[in-house]
């Protein structure tokens, strides 16, 4: 086990981006350190791994062959970390939960942390790999996220639906966009920047929207800004940066009803109940702690809904 994983990592990254400076930035080390690691790997293997010229850096034939194995090594190293973290969680009875960056999830996180019967570790949605993969690899045990249509349905996962909402909400700052909500036409908003949920926030919506715009109207809006975070999207909408278009009852979820915005709910899309907020876990999940946490999440969400409705009715 003389192969130095740091050198292999540098080797792979350098082959992928082809630039010493980019690799240095990517690894947070200096450029000479990058050269030194590659030189070390070349000297340990006794092989030339790269052809270097002023314009480019290309792996040699031997380099290309070893590159494939190096990727496997790094992958296995990473999976080792994931597997061991899972063993540690199982022995300690900890459940690792990833929540999306929505208002509902923020409230959920507070409620879960407050429950002393649970031992929960939160994974930041921004830092992990895509959540379906993270679940399948056991990097996390539970994911709570919004999704659009069937986007979250993977054969290896089960879904505990917490809430379903229909249609789409469109909201705008009336100072910058003087649409009349009573005579609203979808085509009008295609002339402005749209603020949409990213694939990390509500998977499936952005590709759908793009297909819908080009399919039904033959054009895309000048710009689509995708947000990983509901709060950031809400702020952008309030500031007037663009027109917010989110699936379901986004105005209620994001609490923008009272801000004097122009709001239209449309079911122009023939898609009933398109938005769902659900908890996902692995189909074969046996760990009682994970199942208990999933049940708790469902319970907490129901309680929050009841509380919200009471708040709205008063």
């Amino acid at each position, binding site marked *: 086990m003389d*192969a130095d994983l740091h050198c292999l990592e540098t080797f792979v990254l350098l082959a992928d981006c082809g630039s010493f400076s980019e690799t240095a930035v990517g690894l947070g080390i200096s450029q000479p350190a990058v050269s030194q690691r590659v*030189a070390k790997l070349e000297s340990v293997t006794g*092989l030339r791994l790269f052809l270097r010229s002023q314009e480019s850096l290309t792996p040699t034939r031997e380099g290309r062959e070893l590159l494939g194995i190096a990727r496997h090594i790094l992958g296995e190293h990473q999976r080792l970390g994931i597997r061991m973290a899972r063993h540690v969680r199982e022995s300690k009875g900890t459940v690792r939960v990833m929540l999306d960056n929505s208002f509902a999830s923020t409230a959920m996180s507070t409620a879960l942390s407050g429950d002393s019967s649970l031992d929960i570790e939160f994974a930041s949605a921004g830092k992990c790999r895509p959540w379906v993969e993270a679940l399948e690899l056991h990097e996390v045990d539970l994911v709570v996220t919004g999704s659009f249509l069937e986007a979250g349905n993977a054969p290896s996962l089960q879904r505990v639906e917490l809430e379903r909402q229909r249609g789409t909400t469109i909201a705008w700052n009336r100072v910058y966009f003087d649409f009349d909500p009573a005579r609203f036409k979808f085509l009008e908003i295609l002339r402005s920047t749209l603020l949409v949920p990213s694939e990390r926030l509500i998977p499936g919506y952005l590709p759908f929207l793009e297909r819908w715009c080009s399919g039904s109207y033959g054009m895309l809006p000048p710009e689509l800004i995708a947000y990983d975070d509901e709060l950031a999207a809400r702020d952008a909408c309030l500031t007037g940066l663009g027109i917010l278009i989110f699936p379901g009852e986004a105005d209620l979820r994001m609490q923008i009803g009272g801000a004097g915005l122009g709001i239209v709910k449309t079911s122009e899309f023939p898609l009933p109940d398109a938005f769902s907020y659900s908890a996902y876990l692995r189909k074969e999940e046996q760990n009682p702690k994970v199942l208990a946490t999933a049940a708790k999440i469902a319970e907490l969400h129901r309680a929050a809904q009841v509380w919200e409705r009471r708040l709205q009715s008063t």
Partner: protein
Amino acid sequence: MHFDPLHLRAFTTLMAEGSVSRASLELRTSPSNVRRIWQSLEEQLGDHLFVSGESGEVLPTAAAKLLDREMSPLLAEIRRFENSVQRMHDQGRTLRLGADRNVFNTRHFGRMFNALRRDDRFRVSFVEVGEDDGRSALEAGACDMLFAVDGTPGRRFESQDLPPLKFDVASTRPREDGQALSPTELADLDWSLAAFAKTAIALDTLKKIEASGAGNGRLCSQNHFLRWAEEQAEGNTREAIVCVQPASFTRLPQVSFVPLESVPGFPLCATYLKQHPYEFLPSIARQMDRTLSAPPDGCRPSLS
């Protein structure tokens, strides 16, 4: 969870050796460093990995056995990497020899090439490197070792002087005995020196030949010489050209070669990167020196 590769290496060594002191010897580090890594891994996993037995032995716990088992796919990939490297070594690594086409086209180079070709450690190929491109070809890795008359200076390079490329005299006046020509005999002829390196070395060599009693000569290029020997133009009065005999070219029947006595030929130098991954380059450079210093197999080819 991210494991420091060095920690994993220390862990497998400790598993295999069963004692901190033996593991530290194997890892070439101090026992206290091994203990520190052990402790840090235990903190990371929140569990004990080894229990100290009597006389300094350490026994793995269930957690250590689990980690050891979980590491096997990683170790398998690492072995695959090492096996691939070993296979590449066994099959012979590619050794790219670079040279200017004039240097390549000599018997001298042919001898070196053949000597290297028989070596199992590598498989040789030739790369043509222009006269001014030596430095960049070596640095870029286009060639592993460069052969040039004037050497290739550079801080990052290592050089080995090789026996010089010997001179012959190509002449249109046939010589009955085929014996070597002395410089003084050259003085009777209208002669030039065919230069295939940079002019400074050629001029220097020309002066040396003149100083050894050959009268006055001129310089011409290797191309010029080849044209002269292949298709002597009308009115070309030159009678002899001192040259390094090319290994392959077609020449006119009336042009014959005889060795030139007592004048060293053009210097030849092998250059390679100091930090080249091939550990055998210095040794083969020395081996080339020996190969070229030894008398050639058999006698010189017939010059008729």
